[in-house]
């Protein structure tokens, strides 16, 4: 037993040990407090302020929010962001599921395939966006040249509001399939073979096995992939910033919410207004995450 000196009466903690505890967590806790907790609170305060060029803030109540909800730009950007999420998340998970299922079916060269499919996940989004921009180029792009082989005349994909968001979403899907696939494949490999053996004895086919064993057993992994894809989809920025120039005719129809935030905060210097936009983004993401966590009780099965 330790002496009475090192043990505070009535508490379950050893004093010296508690000190060590504070010592170990201090750098992260202080760092997060200074660079994350305090900024979070300050950002909320800023959203009720006008912040001028010299970063002096003056309280203006709900004006930023009033202006924000009164501007067509907010609804346009919200629509654009939802469209991006709608285009990328379901397809990005669906395709990842197909690739994972194919690789899981004892495909030879599984790890080589896995590595190749994972490549987009490690490459700098800003760099790869430049490459896609070049592929999509309306005059010299290889995509249009390829379509020409089939007699299809291409478009100026990134410069037309009808196609620009779809073109950006394709890049989004291309970037996320490998990452999602690795997680889903790991989940599939964790399913005990005995389930499949039992189903085979009962005469179940491959498709029945997939829908009645793989999908339910995999639901925690699918849930994880869904949540992470949604959260990152709602924050799309790098690819749009690099692919759609300020002069593009599709600029308005591809401006995402984070793009709207960035422009206001760091291009126009409307920091108070931008803070309000960032709170709006936060609330949307929070709502969607909560909905997913409530809905998961209906379809996610934990063993």
């Amino acid at each position, binding site marked *: 037993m330790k002496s009475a000196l090192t043990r505070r009466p009535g508490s379950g903690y050893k004093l010296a040990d508690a000190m060590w505890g504070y010592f170990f967590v201090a750098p992260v806790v202080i760092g*997060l407090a200074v660079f994350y907790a305090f900024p979070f609170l300050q950002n909320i305060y800023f959203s009720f302020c006008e912040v001028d060029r010299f970063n002096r803030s003056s309280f203006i109540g709900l004006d930023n929010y009033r202006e924000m909800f009164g501007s067509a730009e907010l609804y346009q950007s919200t629509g654009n962001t939802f469209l991006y999420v709608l285009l990328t998340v379901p397809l990005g998970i669906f395709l990842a599921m197909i690739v994972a299922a194919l690789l899981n079916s004892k495909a030879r060269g599984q790890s080589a395939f896995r590595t190749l499919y994972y490549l987009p996940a490690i490459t700098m989004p800003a760099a790869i966006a*430049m490459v896609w921009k070049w592929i999509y180029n309306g005059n010299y792009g290889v995509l249009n040249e390829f379509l020409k082989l089939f007699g299809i005349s291409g478009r100026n994909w990134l410069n037309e509001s009808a196609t620009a968001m779809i073109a950006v979403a394709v890049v989004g899907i291309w970037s996320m399939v490998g990452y999602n696939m690795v997680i889903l494949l790991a989940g599939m490999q964790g399913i005990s073979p005995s389930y499949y053996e039992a189903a085979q004895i009962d005469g179940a086919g491959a498709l029945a096995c997939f829908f009645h064993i793989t999908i339910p057993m995999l639901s925690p992994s699918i849930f994880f992939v869904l949540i992470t894809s949604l959260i990152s989809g709602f924050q799309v920025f790098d690819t749009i910033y690099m692919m759609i120039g300020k002069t593009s005719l599709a600029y308005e129809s591809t401006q995402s919410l984070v793009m709207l935030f960035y422009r206001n905060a760091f291009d126009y210097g409307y920091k108070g207004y931008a803070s309000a936009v960032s709170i709006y983004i936060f609330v949307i993401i929070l709502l969607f995450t909560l909905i997913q966590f409530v809905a998961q009780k209906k379809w996610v099965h934990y063993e």
Partner: protein
Amino acid sequence: MNNGHRTSRVILYVVLCSGVLLTVFPFIWMVLTSFKLDGEAVQVPPTILPQHPSLQAYQQVFDVIPFRSVLLNSVISTVLIVLGQVLFCTMAAYGFARIKFPGRQLIFILVLSVLMVPGQIFLIPQYLIVQKLHLLDTMGGLVLPSLFSAFGTFLLRQFFLSIPAEMEEAAILDGANRWQIFTRVMVPLVQPGIVTLVIFTAKYGWNNFMWPLIITTTPSKMTLGPALSTLSGVHVNNYPAQMAGAVLAVIPMLILFIVFQKQFIEGVAHAGVKG
């Protein structure tokens, strides 16, 4: 029966290989274009292989951006972020997982709540803090907010929790203090977790875009991301130069990935299964 089996195998590989082709094609096209002269790149119909392979595009990249400084900035900032996170997160994770102290639960929940908030929320105040510290356009400003990570703390805590208590108790009986236990006993045991954190953080630090874009304005202070943005602004219609810049930005992470592909992929798979 055997025939049908073989057909389905063939279909399997055809599907998988076309998927791979779609996945790697942008990389191939990037490399091929980067070795073309800018006249050849806009030729109609396009050439597939460069007719006069040339390093001119790379030269043009070096003319516009101080590439050596930019590359060095990317490397140094990534290394600093990785070192900072590994040190601080491992310490904090050990504290939260293994030591009892008043307020532990509450503080840990507060740490986790940072994970729930999208990054933009912090950006404006972070920018103002860095500005107040006179660290705009410096390495310090570039790395400071990223040295501390709630994600890394959470990730490593999971690893510390899975280590049996006896390992530690034996060391306590031997009279070792907490720091000695941490460095000599515990850190070696969570090495797989640290490797995972290193990979996640290196990827994050290297590919991070918005923060360096905000914080740096002088070309020689930039990292690769914002430098590419500058490059595509200067060489608007010089596609080989743009592709050469992209190649240079992608290659280092690619090499790291090829060397550590097992750790990269298993780290992600692990996060998904445990997550």
